[in-house]
């Protein structure tokens, strides 16, 4: 037993030494133009991945999770990360060695994806969205998650008997503040908004957590009714699924290490 302990101690010491030696390289990206020829981390399947692919001579490293890309940036494995602005703010808030560059890429709109041809459902959700926008529910939900007044309180659905069945929502809970895991539950703007939509439609919401690049396929194959995961509308995506009206505006931003 003693031997095991001392060995474990020796091994962890070795690991710590390995970890400590070698320092994180200084930041070399100060604007979008500096990205040329650099190594860019991003999340596979996101619009950030598409933008990174357009950068001249850049090596693009597609991680399965945005948080993994940010981790790689912190450790100096990539030079910059391109990701949606709101998750970027959350990541930077939690890592004081990182910063967001001031010049963002183009604006894009998040919308809810549903199966092509299922226009009946699409229309119902679209109408519900319009209603939630008009009566201020959507703005209120958003205010709980974004801004200085954010208190991260989840939307409480009205306690009605759900007569119209279930609505399965595919998402990727790695994208705060839109969706993330909190105490074993998936919370965030998208989840709250869909709860509110389900209240309007008198349906029960079922949230399915999966890899981001599986969401469109899940909707397309009917495994989920809707895809709600901060999905921006792109021409490629529109070939495979239909989108409702937009519910939020976002930009892609560049995260780098602090100078």
């Amino acid at each position: 037993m003693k031997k095991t302990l001392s060995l474990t101690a020796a091994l962890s010491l070795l690991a710590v030494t390995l970890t400590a030696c070698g320092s994180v390289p200084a930041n070399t990206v100060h604007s979008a133009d500096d990205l040329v020829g650099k190594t860019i981390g991003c999340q596979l399947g996101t619009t950030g991945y598409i933008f990174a692919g357009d950068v001249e001579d850049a090596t693009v490293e597609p991680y399965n999770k945005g948080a993994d890309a940010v981790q790689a940036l912190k450790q100096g494995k990539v030079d910059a990360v391109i990701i949606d602005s709101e998750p970027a703010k959350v990541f930077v808030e939690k890592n004081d060695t990182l910063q967001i560059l001031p010049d963002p890429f183009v604006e894009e709109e998040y919308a809810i994806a549903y199966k092509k041809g299922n226009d009946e459902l699409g229309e119902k959700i679209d109408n519900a969205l319009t209603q939630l926008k008009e009566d201020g529910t959507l703005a209120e939900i958003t205010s709980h998650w974004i801004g200085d007044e954010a208190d991260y309180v989840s939307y409480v659905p009205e306690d009605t008997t759900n007569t119209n069945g279930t609505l399965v929502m595919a998402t990727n809970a790695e994208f705060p503040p839109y969706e993330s895991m909190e105490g074993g539950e998936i919370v965030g703007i998208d989840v709250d908004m869909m709860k509110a939509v389900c209240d309007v439609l008198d349906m029960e919401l079922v949230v399915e957590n999966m890899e981001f690049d599986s969401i469109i396929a899940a909707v397309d194959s009917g495994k989920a009714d809707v895809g709600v995961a901060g999905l921006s509308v792109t021409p490629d995506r529109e070939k495979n699924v239909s989108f409702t009206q937009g519910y939020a505006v976002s930009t892609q931003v560049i995260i780098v290490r602090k100078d």
Partner: protein
Amino acid sequence: MNFFTQFGDKLYSTFIEDDRWMYLADGLKTTLIVTFFAVIVGVILGFLLAVIRATHDKTGRLKFLNFLAKIYLTVIRGTPVVVQLLIIYFVIFASINVDKIFVAVLAFGLNSAAYVAEIVRSGIMSIDNGQFEAGASLGLNYTRTMIHIILPQAIRNILPALANEFIVLLKETSVAGYIALTDLTKGGDIIRSATYEAFLPLLAVALIYLIMVMLLSWLVSRLERRLSKSDRG
């Protein structure tokens, strides 16, 4: 007819458009490189561990080395390979910018070594003690008996199990995408993320793995036949 034109369109968008087949080709190259070197690391380290463990079992020597080997086997076989891969990438090489292929070779090689070790050990233990005694009576010491008499017989016995381990290893490298290494599986995922079409990329990836495994099985069965030719019994 409509079905075929649609299928043709999908074939085009999955493989031809924007040279997307290149993701699969590059991915295949990475998978093969990682597997090849991981097999080498696994075999060398695995044989070493097996000899240490078998020597201890047979003679009672190498107590401390056997103890280390046992810890190694317990830890490696007791944790998932994808967790080991992430630990090597994000913890052990935390602040060192290290080549990802090297990380993958190390992770899969170290992992495979533990399984190879137990396979080889079972092979050594399956050889009758009389063979050790025969070696000794010919004036060979323990090491030479091991190398010239025991291991050649053991290898023939364990070849199917070893081949099985290499097949598992080849398929296990499909989790390399976790550290953003574009292997064959990740290559398919990248196509999937661009076309949002699951059927063709996944099928193509599966088919390529299947062909590689069949090729490997065929090579091993040939090797087995050749080795059994030298067997007089």
